[in-house]
């Protein structure tokens, strides 16, 4: 039966396809297959090595510190739903000894995050591993040196953990055409085995509302320590990018038993100034005002955590010049006021963001 069908379907001698037509058909088929494969190939994400590198001079109360750092980020996409990502921090901070002499210091190494993300649905991403604590917006989103408008950390940054080891659910989805909702909820385990992987036993979360029309985002964060004194921390954040001005405003408030405080940060790009436009459109003015109030812990313990030992106010402003995408020169001046003493803060340096594909990126 099958032989007969094969015989009947075989082209008869008089209607055989000419050689040129066969070749054309074969070429067309191969080309179509190749194009189809190319389209699929071009959409497939490629592993990337990205990150930042920077060199800064921080002059704090007349004491100069040379700071060189590199923060590599590895992004490894797997399939359509998985992403393995990691960021390390290598920072060398060098100072002259108080009695003079050559600059000396240490190179610190830290693993900021090493996590596996599974995009389970348009509403939920599951993250497992070591991740940046979603408390406020600075730690997760504004921390990299090529993003932050002023290089000094906000005074309240140490009020929440920077990284946690555990599991997190997060996502963002539109509530309607004018409102997006985003959230993150996590639980983390205690980790003391290695200095680079330290983590507290915490539970916490953050929720935010983003209004794409006026470009306003606001939200709240909460964290509960599930060890020692089982303290609570909470905070609020706000961000606004007006549509008519090249201005970006960010702000955070945080409170815990270790202290409380806020910062307000603004960056204005001179792209709308018509004078010397070739230069001015690369220039950005940034300013920050912040305040910290002592908590229920002694000053030496606060200083060990990186917090001020006394109630503190600080104002800072500076200029950033973007030489090209991802490369900027920075300079700023600030003054800190506290019961422990007032002093000046000067910063000058350069920040660079790099991104290299670990595979064929182009078609």
């Amino acid at each position, binding site marked *: 039966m099958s032989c007969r069908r094969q015989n009947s379907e075989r082209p008869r001698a008089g209607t055989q396809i000419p050689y040129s037509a066969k070749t054309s058909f074969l070429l067309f088929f191969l080309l179509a297959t190749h194009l189809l494969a190319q389209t699929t190939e*071009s*959409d*497939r*994400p*490629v*592993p*990337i090595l*990205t990150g930042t590198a920077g060199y800064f001079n921080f002059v704090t109360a007349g004491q100069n510190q040379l700071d060189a750092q590199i923060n590599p980020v590895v*992004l490894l*996409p797997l399939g359509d739903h998985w*992403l393995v*990502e990691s960021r390390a921090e290598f920072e060398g901070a060098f100072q002259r000894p108080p009695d003079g002499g050559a600059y000396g210091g240490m190179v610190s190494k830290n693993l900021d995050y090493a996590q596996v*993300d599974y*995009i389970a649905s*348009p509403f939920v*991403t599951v*993250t497992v591993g070591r991740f940046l604590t979603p408390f406020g*917006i600075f730690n*997760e*989103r*504004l921390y990299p040196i*090529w*993003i932050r408008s002023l290089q000094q950390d906000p005074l309240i940054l140490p009020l929440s953990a920077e990284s946690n080891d555990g599991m997190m659910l*997060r*996502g*963002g*989805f*539109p509530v309607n055409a004018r409102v*997006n909702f*985003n*959230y*993150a909820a996590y639980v983390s385990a205690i980790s003391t085995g290695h200095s680079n992987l330290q983590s507290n036993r915490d539970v916490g979360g953050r929720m*935010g509302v*983003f209004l*794409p029309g006026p*470009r306003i*985002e606001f939200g709240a964060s909460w964290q509960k320590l599930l060890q020692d004194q089982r303290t609570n921390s909470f905070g609020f954040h706000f*961000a606004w*990018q007006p549509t008519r001005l090249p201005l*970006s405003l960010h702000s955070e408030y945080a409170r815990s038993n270790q202290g409380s405080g806020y910062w307000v940060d603004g960056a204005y*790009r001179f792209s709308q100034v018509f004078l010397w436009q070739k230069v001015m459109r690369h220039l950005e003015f940034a300013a920050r005002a912040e305040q910290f109030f002592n908590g229920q812990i002694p000053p030496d313990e606060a200083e060990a955590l990186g917090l001020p030992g006394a109630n503190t106010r600080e104002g800072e402003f500076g200029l950033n010049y*973007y030489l090209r*995408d*991802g490369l900027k020169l920075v300079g700023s001046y600030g003054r800190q006021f506290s019961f422990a003493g007032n002093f000046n803060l000067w910063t000058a340096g350069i920040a660079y*963001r790099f*991104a290299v*594909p670990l*595979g*064929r*990126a*182009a*078609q």
Partner: protein
Amino acid sequence: MKNKLLSAIWLLALMSTIGMAAASPRTDASTEPVVRNSAEVEAETMRLEGEKRFRANCGRCHAAPQKFPPRMMATIIRHMRVRATITDEDVRLVLFYMTQ
């Protein structure tokens, strides 16, 4: 009689051919540009919407970066989807805008 019949068939075939030839360019002219234009309009709409979403979402934290090759952008947008909790629709439109 036979010649007349053959002539009539030839004439009919000729008229049909001329009619088809006359009709086919008009069909091409009336449909193809419309299809191309609608596709272009759709792509342009997506690109503009993508740019709007890009400025709204990515501009929350940083200035507009350069455009990377499509396969790099696909990775970066997946990273940003997780980091900045960008919505599914915003991811698709921003990726379209950044790879055009």
